[in-house]
């Protein structure tokens, strides 16, 4: 057995320390050879996304407690952007998740967007899969984004909750970009702030203009006051993704893997050099990169 295989076996047998080390390896772009049948129990990947500061982490804290109280093992991957200039990052999501510290049945990993040679989306897919194989039943992924984000949460989440807050209305922007139809539920947080009502109304009326009768529900909650959380969890669990969305999901997965393959090609720097000097065209470069396969 190689060292990596030993680590994997130990993680599958429940070693938290080794699971954590494997997540770091995935983050650094390594691939784990996991056989298909290893996720032999029910699990769910829940994506929580929305603009900065709307209360996603506070909400995740509530969701952790909800599932933990029902005996579920909950893992969280919380992603914050890293500075493109220095590569540094301040990962502060844990601060808002008190329940993150509540014991053996909760695992929280903070991640920055850098250091993922193959793009964070592909890493997140692999990490979720590993967590599921190690017996984590509920996997929550928190990402910042309101549509323009390069993190394609649709690619790996089974359910997606879009969070907005008072005085934001960013979701209206997302609606224009056609992202919103991918959400299973829209949550307007901070219902304790009066202007949240208005935001919820605006979003609802924006939906009423679209012909689809499968637009997501819009729910007002207050993560801070623990208001509306039960209802939110019931909606998350009962919402059924329309069939067309699974096709979009497969498409996004393909795109993420495609990105991953291109970005982790050992030829990448050479190809960029050659394009820069003009010795090959962009199309040539793409052909070279896509011909490479990670074994």
């Amino acid at each position, binding site marked *: 057995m190689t060292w990596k295989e030993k680590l994997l076996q130990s993680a599958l047998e429940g070693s938290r*320390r080794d699971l954590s080390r494997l997540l*770091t390896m995935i983050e650094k772009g390594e691939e784990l050879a996991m056989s298909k049948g290893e996720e032999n129990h029910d699990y769910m990947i829940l994506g929580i996304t929305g603009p900065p500061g709307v209360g996603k982490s506070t909400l995740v804290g509530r969701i952790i407690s909800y599932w933990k109280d029902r005996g579920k093992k909950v893992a969280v991957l919380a992603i914050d952007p890293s500075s493109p200039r220095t*590569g*540094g*990052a301040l990962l502060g999501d*844990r*601060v808002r998740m008190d329940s993150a*510290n509540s014991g053996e049945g909760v695992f929280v990993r903070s991640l920055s967007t850098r250091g993922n040679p193959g793009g964070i989306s592909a890493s997140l897919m692999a990490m979720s899969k590993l967590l599921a194989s190690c017996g984590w039943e509920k996997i929550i992924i928190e990402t910042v984004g309101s549509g323009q984000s390069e993190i394609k949460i649709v690619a790996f989440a089974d359910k997606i909750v879009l969070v907005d807050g008072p005085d934001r209305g960013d979701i209206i922007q997302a609606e224009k970009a056609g992202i919103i139809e991918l959400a299973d539920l829209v949550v307007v947080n901070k219902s304790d702030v009066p202007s949240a009502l208005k935001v919820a109304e605006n979003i609802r009326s924006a939906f009423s203009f679209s012909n689809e009768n499968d637009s997501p529900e819009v729910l007002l909650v207050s993560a801070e006051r623990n208001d509306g959380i039960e209802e939110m969890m019931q909606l998350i669990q009962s919402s059924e993704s329309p069939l067309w969305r699974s096709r979009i999901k497969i498409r996004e997965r393909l795109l993420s893997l495609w990105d991953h393959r291109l970005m982790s090609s050992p030829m990448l720097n050479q190809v960029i050099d050659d394009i820069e000097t003009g010795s090959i065209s962009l199309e040539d470069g793409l052909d070279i990169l896509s011909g490479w396969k990670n074994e």
Partner: protein
Amino acid sequence: MKIVMAKPGLDGHDRGAKVIARALRDGGHEVVYTGLRRTPEEISRIVMDEDATALGLSTLSGAHDVLVPRICELLRESGMGHVMVFLGGIIPERDHGKMFLEGVRAIFGPGSKTEDILAFLEKSESRIEKNLPIGVFNDDGWHWN
């Protein structure tokens, strides 16, 4: 470097920890801030889940002499003896020797300069590259100040 910045115990002074967390980020590090009032057990688990290379502890309340040894012990017990621990806040001079014996590699009091802290982290990184001990387990007695 991936660094967990933690506030152990009941100490509510968090200005310093926040200032340093930001300064380290600007210095190119990945900093996980835990927030206030974490127990030694919580801190040790956070370091494990985050697979951090280093743990920065900030204490101003005077409880470091109990909390720091406990945290270092928990790290060693749970297979994380390779983690580098450094301290900041109000740590009286007379306690420094004891902290270093626990495996702490540096102590930064009030008025510390960011450049100095970053230089310490750079030195630590070069020690890791050279396979020199840096964690709380394999102590060769090296410390920064």
